């Protein structure tokens, strides 16, 4: 076989395998969109579940997920950004920095079910928050923390040192330099990362199983110490453990579609933001 033939064959194998990946994704999306599309209606999004969750809507699960996303981001975003700034801008000692990065990577590598165990043991039991939005948000927040830190770090690395030196040379303090010069440049990337981590948090199930998620709740939460329903857990419940698994199939398709749409919209938003803010920074 000549080397040209080998190249030809190899490249075609790559091409075919890549298109298999493409086909798998399209298959999954097609399956969820086609079967879930007819479920999507205003009622589905804004009504309570009825008849043992075989009819009605998924309103409480949507609200629950929104609460959890908001709660966890309220925790993870400020702390994660501050931590990212600290690790990238303040640690000069490379050993210490390596240690911090190692810990962040370790935290990121811990499986989500372990976060669930930990969240239950610390927030639900030891701190006595009970199964609650508070416990669930904190657990999800810890899970999102390494993601936010990494995003922040990467955004800061992308800021050229000349900006820092320029500002410091003008006599500005380190803190002012970071606030007035570095952060504004890094912000678009940080925000995109943030949006993508929202997508991650909103789909997590294992960490909320034992910290907040309710099988079925006929009412909306009134305080942060209430349990809530959540979209991913709802999908799990109605597709596996209900007594009427077959009857609630359509509800499951609808819920899966809402979850996927949520992630899709966040992805599009992140890309749009990246482009929009990216241009703005360049123009200044």
């Amino acid at each position, binding site marked *: 076989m000549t080397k040209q033939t080998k190249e030809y064959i190899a490249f075609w194998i790559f091409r075919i395998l890549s298109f298999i990946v493409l086909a798998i994704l399209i298959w999954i999306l097609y399956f969820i969109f086609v079967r879930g599309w007819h479920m999507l209606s205003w009622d589905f999004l804004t009504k309570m579940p009825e008849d043992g969750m075989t009819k009605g809507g998924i309103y409480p699960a949507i609200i629950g997920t929104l609460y959890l996303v908001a709660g966890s981001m309220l925790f993870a975003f400020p702390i994660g950004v501050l931590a990212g700034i600290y690790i990238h801008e303040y640690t000069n000692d490379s050993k210490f920095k390596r240690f911090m990065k190692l810990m962040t990577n*370790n935290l990121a590598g811990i499986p989500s079910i372990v976060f669930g165990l930990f969240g239950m043991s610390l927030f639900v039991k030891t701190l006595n928050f009970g199964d609650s939005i508070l416990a669930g948000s904190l657990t999800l927040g810890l899970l999102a923390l390494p993601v936010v830190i990494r995003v922040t770090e990467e955004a800061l690395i992308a800021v050229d040192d000349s900006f820092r030196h320029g500002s410091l040379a003008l006599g500005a303090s380190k803190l002012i330099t970071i606030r007035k010069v570095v952060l504004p440049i890094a912000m678009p990337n940080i925000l995109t990362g943030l949006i993508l981590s929202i997508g991650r948090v909103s789909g997590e*199930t294992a960490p909320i199983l034992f910290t907040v998620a309710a099988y079925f709740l006929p009412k909306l939460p009134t305080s942060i110490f209430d349990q809530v329903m959540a979209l991913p857990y709802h999908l799990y419940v109605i597709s596996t453990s209900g007594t009427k698994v077959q009857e609630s199939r359509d509800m499951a398709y609808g819920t899966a579609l809402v979850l996927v749409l949520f992630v899709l919209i966040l992805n599009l938003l992140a890309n749009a933001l990246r482009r929009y803010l990216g241009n703005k920074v360049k123009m200044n």
Partner: protein
Amino acid sequence: MKRKFKQFTEKLIEGLLLISGSLTSITVLLIVIFLFKEGLGLFTTSPMENKNVIVVNKLNPVEHLTAGQIKKIFDQEITNWKDLGGKNDTILLFTINDLSNYFSEEEIGENFEYLPEKLNSIVDSIPNLLAVYTDKYLVKELKGKIVKVDKNNIPDFILGREWFPTAEPAVQLGVLPLILGTLLVSIFAILFALPIGIATSIYMAEVANERVRKILKPIIELLAGIPSVVYGFFGLIVIVPLIHDTFNLPVGETALAGSIVLAIMALPTIITVSEDAIRNTPRSMKEASLALGANRWQTIHRVVLPYSMSGITAAAILGIGRAIGETMAVLMVTGNAAVMPHSLLQPVRTIPATIAAELGEAPQGGVHYQALFALGCILFILTLLINIWVEYVSSKQKFKK
């Protein structure tokens, strides 16, 4: 005054930064503490449920039993004291349920007030008896002998082949089937995903033109963002029936279904990480190869792949780590039978799925609860080792440059 205030706020903010920066380390530490406090607690407790004790005749030489032996006695796999180191005599099993075979209701008393004495007497009179009852029926001057039950211990926990965490009278906490189930599903997932993932990353980094790449890239990002329950749902509705029909099995929920779903989920990680590694190959190195008359494929497999091998290895290890820790999708499609896995076409149960499925029913502080935390510890250690491995592999890459 104003200056002092400014300095103060600067110090304050720097303190805040330090605290935030340390939070990941603190969290990892707390996770270790909470996980291992509960998990290691398991190894100080007895596998006997509901304060049951085992009482035998005084002359019986058997001093202690393991949880596994107790189960075998109850399953009548062990029927002779000889097998337990005693005399050659059949074992006569006695539980509270057998009471009516020995005594009338009057003899026991309306409120079981004579029961402890009666139990004491039959233990005394029947030499080959093995009686199991709760410790509140023990009397002060016991004529029989209490057989000690070995505490839960790490070797039995890890090497035990039976997982019946709520069995009576002694729970069976062998996690070997769960560990093997986890590894089986994850390793096959990687075997499926790795060739496809690496091929796609090579295609995207070295072969495809800009237009194709612009289509593939966001799609792979989306694939990475889809929640694992959705993959589980897809697996449940599409892959499971497919396997059921293709292989003509009684159930489609099998290790194979888990591996396929995990493989799909691992693809984005593998593709992105190894594509980055491949792109990191210096341009000049590729040019040198082409300038020597190599074609693109020769350049890829003789120069680019060897150069980016550590990055690709890191991608594979990361993928395994993700697969081992994945909970929901696996829980939904693998059938969750806690038996030693023999083939891919059989239901299996993984560690994360076990925790997710059982923690809700395990009473806090009980043996079962502690056992699930101990499983969490195993999972934590596994993923920690994988993380260290990844760090090691990718630090080697940096050194090379």
